[in-house]
């Protein structure tokens, strides 16, 4: 079932659903404005709907918020373009990007690719008119209301501001009982210029 909750409440509803810890739920997939709840069996639909219908969003308590810091080199190929299109200087673009606090709204596009909200409105631009055929691994980019880090080299249409050496996705971490993905929905992220 697809729950429509609105972009600013996705994280809080996600937390509320996780708190319920329903055994019938197989998978919970947040996105821009919705949350998909997949069940192990369709027959459980009625009872899960009943549990979710009066669900209140619940913010993660401040003390339990997980924050990570990503060391960023602001050496992206699109810094000048972004500066020109926003009417800012390159230094101002960098200051706005690394001054903000971000939160992973959802993952999509490729394993470990997080859509981070919290981008300063001054930096919100449409995607590039034509995508690049190859964006390098670790590229830090912006498009629309989001910033993101490319976990692997891939095609991409976002504006490149910088790069990082952080490993975003590593299946081997799963075999050690850890999350394979550095970013997961709800996580807070800060960029620090290195």
């Amino acid at each position, binding site marked *: 079932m*697809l729950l429509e909750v609105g*972009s600013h409440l996705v994280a809080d509803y996600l937390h509320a659903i996780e708190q319920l810890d329903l055994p019938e739920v*197989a*998978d*919970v*997939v*947040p*996105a*821009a*404005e*919705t*949350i*998909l709840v*997949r069940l192990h069996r*369709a027959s459980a639909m009625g009872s899960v709907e009943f549990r979710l219908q009066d669900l209140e969003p619940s913010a993660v308590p401040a003390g339990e918020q997980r924050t990570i810091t990503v060391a960023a080199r602001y050496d992206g190929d699109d810094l000048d373009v972004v500066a020109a299109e926003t009417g800012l200087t390159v230094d101002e673009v960098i200051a706005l990007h690394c001054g903000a606090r971000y939160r992973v709204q*959802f*993952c*999509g*596009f*490729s*394993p*470990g*690719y997080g*859509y981070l909200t919290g981008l300063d409105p001054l930096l919100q631009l449409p995607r590039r008119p034509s995508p690049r055929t190859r964006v390098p691994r670790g590229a830090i980019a912006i498009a629309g209301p989001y910033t993101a880090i490319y976990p*692997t080299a891939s095609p991409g249409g976002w504006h490149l501001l910088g790069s990082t050496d952080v490993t975003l*996705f590593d*299946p081997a971490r*799963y075999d050690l009982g850890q*999350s*394979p*993905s550095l970013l*997961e*929905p709800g996580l807070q992220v800060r960029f620090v210029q290195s």
Partner: protein
Amino acid sequence: MIEVLDSGVLATVQDEGRIGFSAWAVSPSGAADGPAYRLANRLVGNVPGCAAVEVVLGSIRLRAHVDTVIAVSGAPAPITVGERSFATGQAIPVAGGEVITVGWAPAGLRTYLAVRGGIAVPPVLGSRSTDTISGLGPDALAAGDLLPIGNDVQGLPAPDQVPLHPIDVAPVIDLVPGPRLDWIDENSKSVLVSRSFSVSDKVDRIGVRLSGPRLVRSRTGELPSEAIIRGAIQLPPDGEPIVFGPDHPTTGGYPVVAVVAERHAHLVAQLRPGYTVRFRWSR
């Protein structure tokens, strides 16, 4: 070990896939025709979930390096082991050194070859499936590959041949309404479940693109990305629907107007370019 002599059009290792990782943008992957894959495993006496080989359009040649037992199911294809010929749907003993050939499948798209004990390539995120959209899991098979054989068996191989479901070249597939059914106009809603669509040549593990009657959107504007599931029928701006398969992207920005009922997902997996398909609402 099993050695790949010729991998044909596309052959991949598949099992039940990676379930529960969608929130990290990992596709479920796994055998496209689940019932056919499970049958092949049962025939050789494997523990459920063992990895098997998914072969597109048949046409693969392997050499067993040890004595083993295989079974083939899904799209029916002629099988030879050494000089002997076999049909699908039975356990076939293979002696070490013999060459296994699965020929061209005249109908359907995907044939499954299970080996007693399972294909034991290293799992990635708990699954041995090749995910063609992200590259997780083993690469598609190529000539020269040596596939390790596991020992995840329970019981003996099946003593008898079992009949396979014939491939339906013009299936009628059950749908449930999608979250954005109201993004197409009333006429398109009725076209979706009354007219035939034809299967285009854009068919892979990510999705099946249909052509035929256009579905017309009742509203314009962009849809913010939302989660996709297997069987989701997405409507891009050109009006030609895409039915998503096991390697689907986990989120997408076009409206999902309907979803193939889970019990009919395997029918989509056997659609071949040129086949026709009709839909009806599941009851």
